[in-house]
């Protein structure tokens, strides 16, 4: 038999950042779609409204990224532990996790990774978040900031290959974020119930099913 246990998985600052970021990135993707394809997409009415909303969301996501980075680096000091894959993760962890997602999940085997506040992410998540948070997001913020000030930054734009290359890179990075959103939201439904991973992102507490025979796990209130 199993019983439910509640684990404080996601502290409030991280939750606020996550939803601010999520809302911002979805806004950026939708407004970006109208900005690039105005002859096919008109969601926000005036084109200028879409540009202004896109710029505002871009600034919000940039500030939110700065806060997230500061929180993990200065306050929680768990950035490396949570986000950087270990040698073991690289050697076998990622493959093991991929093997689970693509094969053993379908035959009913358990997830090889068990989330705890100190080790929230499985090796594949770590690798994906590392690329997203430390490569793609900084790049999309940087290219977006340059595109907001084309006239004064023209010389820098040319050094980087010109405005078209920059716009193209910004668009491809945005496509990567859209693809990531699809995978991210879907994978979040693979908990023991479809919403099991959504709840801790809302109230911080995650339900866990624990075998009765095990000594009852102490509820962990330590912030990661």
């Amino acid at each position: 038999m199993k019983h439910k246990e509640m684990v404080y998985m996601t502290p409030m600052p991280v939750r606020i950042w996550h939803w601010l970021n999520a809302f911002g990135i979805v806004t950026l993707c939708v407004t970006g779609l109208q900005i690039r394809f105005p002859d096919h997409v008109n969601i926000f009415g005036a084109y200028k409204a879409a540009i202004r909303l896109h710029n505002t969301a871009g600034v919000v996501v940039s500030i939110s990224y700065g806060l997230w980075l500061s929180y993990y680096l200065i306050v929680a000091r768990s950035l490396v532990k949570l986000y950087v894959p270990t040698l073991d993760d690289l050697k076998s962890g990622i493959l093991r996790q991929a093997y689970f997602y693509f094969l053993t999940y379908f035959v009913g085997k358990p997830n090889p990774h068990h989330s705890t506040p100190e080790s929230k992410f499985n090796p594949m998540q770590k690798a994906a978040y590392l690329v997203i948070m430390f490569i793609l997001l900084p790049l999309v913020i940087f290219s977006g900031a340059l595109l907001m000030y084309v006239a004064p930054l023209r010389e820098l734009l040319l050094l980087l290959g010109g405005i078209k290359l920059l716009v193209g890179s910004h668009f491809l990075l945005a496509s990567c974020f859209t693809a990531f959103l699809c995978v991210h939201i879907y994978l979040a439904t693979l908990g023991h119930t479809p919403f099991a991973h959504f709840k801790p992102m809302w109230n911080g507490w995650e339900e866990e099913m624990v075998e009765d025979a095990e000594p009852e796990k102490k509820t962990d209130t330590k912030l990661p």
Partner: protein
Amino acid sequence: MHAYNRMMRMFLAVFMLSAATVYAAVPENGKCMGCHGRKDVKSIAGNSVYIDPEKFTATTHSIVGCTSCHDRVSSGHPGDGSAPARAVCGDCHAPVSVEYAKSLHASKARCNDCHNPHEVRLPMFMSGDDINKKCAKCHDARKILKSHAKWLPQAELHIDSLLCITCHTGSQDYVITMSIESRLPGSKDAFKTATYEELAKLTSGDNIGRVIDLNGDNKVSLEELRAFNHHLRGKNMRLWGMMTPEVVTHSYQILENRWDCTFCHASGPKAMQKSFIAFPDKSGGYKRLAVEKGAILDILYGTPDFYMLGTTRSTPLNIIGALIVAAGLSFPVFHGFFRLLTRKNRKEDDHEA
């Protein structure tokens, strides 16, 4: 009656003499320019009566001849002090005159305030910068920037890339016209349209189009455009693109649809594939060379300084972007499908992701 005679003479002159040089075709031009082509000749009142022969030769007005407009010159001219008659522009340009009279601008400026009849040329033989300078004679550039910045995102960029008449007339058929600009001495980011003399130093012979048109076929290919951007960038030069109308009207007005960004930005990539490069000539005018169709959409250094949101987007990049998104979407679709098929294999409690 005078107007009718002028019209007839103009048509005859244009049909009979259009291909010939001005002085040879209209002999009286030579007679007039004998004095008016000299800077030292002044009127009795001491005013300059100089007409730049090179600039005048390049105008259509030189083909119709001086006496088409100045048809009553006294036999005692210039000694008798009487000024020759002057034509009214509307005598020949009646439709333009009627159109202009209805515009907001009509009460503010006369034809001559914008167009010097001895230097006038069609917009396609002028640089965008020169056309905008005519507007700037009355409209203070700083005030214009300030008023546009109230509603127009990146106003400075828009004003630098557009002719005033692109938005403030009912002109039609827009193309991208690029001109070669040289960096102002001692400046990091200020450029001005390069002169004939500056470009002549970069190529041998009179054909300065060869600065970009390397094979001299009077067309600029994408490869030539890229080569120009790579090589001449180091020479403190750049290509600057502006959106210019092919059909210009004189219906100066504030058009409602120009407040809407989609007038330009939603025209789609097909609209902006036609582009030209304008080269200065010795007379102060410009000659255009057609650029390979679609070059304006190139992402690899074809026109690194020119991009119009929405309009000059790259189709190959759109396809790559769509494939990335499709790859992201395919995971939930396929994984979800097999998840559904194999749901009986799992006790939901055991399979957290």
